[in-house]
């Protein structure tokens, strides 16, 4: 089994190396983990591949051998045309897969519990709220009074609890080097708990198709030293405040670059950092879909198309 795991490891390492020789691109794979969740996910992947190889390798090796040995043109082995049953073989055929599945299922149980995204990774996690909009993400740091578009900055070493919703269709937020994805749905909240153990930049993305700008709904996660995080909070903003009007503009169906145009900023893919206008806006946006004030915060209907986007 060890060499099977070795082979599987090599295969995955090949892919990981390819990704690691990154030409300046952001880290985007859980095979180069930046935190304990992705680390464990990568390890579990290797484990599953290794164990499953026990039942797969016999097929990969056996089929060519059988075809070679028993080919009609030049057969080597005996011919047993009426052989159709063997009790011992039956035990092996059913028994081995059952044993493998028992082992795999135990590991599945263990790792699924261990990596439950709803479980905080430690005391006092940094609270961040994420709102999926059409083709961008708004991140709110309620305690810090700051909000961003398409940038998530977290301090290394402190657990993070991300609470998600959307103000449009269903989306799915993935920051592969740190943690797996979870769906975000309007009027509902879901959670992702993770932590960064080293500094670095990773790409986060929406993985649930939601229209034309889907391919550009990416954001940057920056894991920084705690001191740098405090400095980032203190430095802060682009002069914008995330209030109802700004939010309504952001809610339009635009990618980040076009949204910046709509807000009068320079058109680029740079994230926007804003001061937070209202503490409980996340709650109000969720409540819009449950008898809250549905007209506020840009309403609940089809968002407008962006001005700049329309001009193109």
């Amino acid at each position: 089994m060890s060499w099977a795991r070795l082979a599987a490891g090599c295969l995955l390492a090949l892919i990981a190396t390819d990704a690691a020789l990154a030409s300046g691109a952001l880290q985007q794979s859980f095979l180069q983990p930046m935190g304990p969740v992705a680390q464990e996910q990568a390890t579990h992947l290797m484990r599953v591949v290794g164990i499953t190889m026990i039942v797969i390798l016999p097929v990969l090796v056996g089929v060519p051998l059988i075809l070679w040995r028993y080919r009609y043109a030049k057969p080597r082995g005996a011919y047993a045309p009426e052989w159709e049953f063997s009790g011992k073989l039956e035990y092996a055929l059913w028994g081995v897969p059952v044993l493998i599945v028992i082992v795999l299922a135990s590991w599945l149980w263990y790792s699924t519990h261990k990596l439950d995204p709803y479980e905080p990774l430690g005391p006092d996690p940094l609270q961040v709220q994420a709102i999926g909009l059409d083709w961008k993400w708004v991140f709110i740091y309620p305690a810090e009074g700051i909000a961003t578009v398409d940038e998530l900055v977290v301090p290394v070493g402190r657990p993070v609890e991300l609470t998600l919703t959307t103000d449009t269709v269903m989306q799915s937020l993935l920051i592969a080097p740190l943690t797996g994805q979870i769906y975000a749905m309007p009027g509902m909240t879901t959670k992702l708990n993770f932590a960064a153990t080293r500094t670095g930049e990773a790409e986060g993305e929406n993985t649930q198709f939601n229209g034309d700008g889907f391919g550009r709904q990416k954001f940057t996660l920056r894991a920084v030293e705690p001191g740098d995080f405090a400095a980032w909070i203190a430095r802060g903003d682009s002069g914008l405040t995330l209030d109802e009007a700004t939010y309504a503009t952001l809610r339009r169906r635009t990618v980040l670059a076009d949204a910046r145009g709509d807000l009068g900023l320079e058109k680029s893919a740079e994230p926007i950092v804003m001061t937070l206008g209202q503490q409980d806006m996340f709650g109000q946006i969720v409540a819009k879909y449950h008898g809250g004030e549905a007209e506020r915060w840009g309403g609940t209907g089809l968002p407008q198309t962006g001005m700049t986007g329309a001009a193109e």
Partner: protein
Amino acid sequence: MSGQTSPIVGNLDWNVTPFTDVLQHPGTSTIIGAFAASVLVLGAIAAVALFTRMRWWGPLYRNWLTSPDAKRIGIMYIALALIMMARGIIEGFVMRAHQASALGTLSAQEGGLVAPDHFAQLFSTHGTIMIFFVAMPLLIGLINFVLPQQLGARDMAFPVLNQVSLGLTAAGAALVMISLLVGDFGTGGWTMYPPYTGKIFSPGEGVDYWLWAILISGMGSTLTGMNFAVTIFKQRAPGMHLMRMPLFCWTSLCVAIMLIYAMPALTVSSAMLALDRYAGFHFFTNEAGGNMMNYANIFWMFGHPEVYILILPAFGVFSEISSTFSGKRLYGYTSLVIASMSIAVISFTVWLHHFFTMGQSAGVNIAFGIATMVIGVPTGVKIYDWMATLWRGRVRITAPIVYLTGFFLLFVIGGLSGIILANPSIDYQVHNSTFLVAHFHNVIIPGVLFGMLAGIHYWFPKAFGFRLSETWGRRTAFLFVAGFIFTFMPLYALGLMGMPRRSPTFQNPDFLPWMYIAALGGVLMLCALASLIWTFWTSYRHRAALAVPGGDPWNGSTLEWSTPAPVPEWTFPCIPQVSARHDWGERKRAGDPWHGPTEYTDIEMPANTAHGLLIAVAAFLLGFAMVWHIWWLAILGVLAIPGLMLLRAMRVIEPRIIPAAQVAEADSRFRQLVASLPAATRADEETQRNRGVPDISEFAG
């Protein structure tokens, strides 16, 4: 689309075709759209011209469109599937070509071959077509053709219902096809998750095309399931106990049961989405208490069994060909029966693994994750059973065996990635990524497609009287294997690197080399398609040399090989009395399997009728009218269907009687022919000496 709905033409106007699009916004994307529409139009014109010139309309109507014969219905299903497959493969290639040219930046407009909206339509139609209008008609067609022959029955239990099922499937396929020319298709993928596909976020006709194609063809599939089940339970030849049925019949029974229980869930989820879209309901909307999670839940209650509906008939085919082409009995018949039935049952308990990431508790995910792994056990057993069947055999490397080999070597990799995805903790990472895309193509192409193509190659002589060219058959199989490897192995790597599925653009230049390899795979897939078409054409041209009138070209052991090729419409001159599991094989062992029956009786066959055809037309018009809000036509369509049923119910319908004398004459001609043909050994199988009469002394399995 204009703002007002016209009472006459609904939302239709002159701006709905890709031709107007290309005039308004010229570019590669609209040119490709217009080109596809042109191919459809020119193809239709060419077909009409050909049929008129060859005077085929009459025979087409009399012998095919109005025939209730399950064998002909099966062939029509397969023809439909192959036409749709051509479109699906080309769409796949366009998507690969697009992504190979889609490296972009976050600040610049998406580039590449096609626009993002066009790309989204491509993946939505590709998925819809490949699942519902390629895989499903292929397997339903193959079962229709083979099942009654293997059971020793003349036809399905409900031949006219069978026609209706085919008609409804074809009507659904026609709706997807016409969406190339008239209007847009939906962009929500083949699953069409709301709220994105609700009226607010997808106001146009696109999702409606999908809904009506699914509602109509889904009804056809449900009816098919009932037909198969009743046929297996009621129409078996005397002596054909359940445990004597060939494995293909067993997997057909599994499919029948699963169709009956799974398809209604799809009909329900689609009908609910239709009510949301047409009648202002709020099942899945964002507000007013709607909840999109219910859609995912109901859809996958269908969606997961569907996967096994697709794969089980292929497993049936692999059971047949592994035994026949290794000249051996099938190893572990009982094991295979138990495994097939286990798969059919367990497949209803795993649907939640399609949305591990929806936010439910770890405990729920664990339960469904483990159920998913459990289904790997019977699947694994089956693979080992087929290996044991080949072991100590004398394996002829025919085209079906090449497909089987490709299946063995590639399907287990798909199984591995399935086990990986069954782990919720890993699924959180690779769900919605191209890893998932690679996984399901890895089970569907080497599993379903290879199985069906192997089955077509295997039973083709029974349908048309001549074999397919082995050389070209093998070339096609190798091309499909290579095409699959090059197209989808890179997607595994891309998925692990974090590439989401359905993405019209990407920003990571490291993805590019993998994209190029996948695009090369797309080219190979096109070559495989061309090679498949060429296989049919070249075999047709050499049909005299490839003819196997003896009807048993592979020295088989099941009942269908006892009849002439092509098989007559009545299949058996008199219903066989079955006395063993491999009855035809046993008769070969006993010597002189071809002795005729002592007496012949009149045969009652269901009379030809245009019933299915008319229902198909009405269903198509209903669907098209609903898509475009042409209410008067929709009302006509909806009234026409019960009207046609009522009309048929009111009439006295006499079966067609084939006189005993005619059967006796045809049958004795066949017996004389067999006696006069030289017996071919297995070494001669691929040569012109194979006239369909095998050397029975060689039969040992």
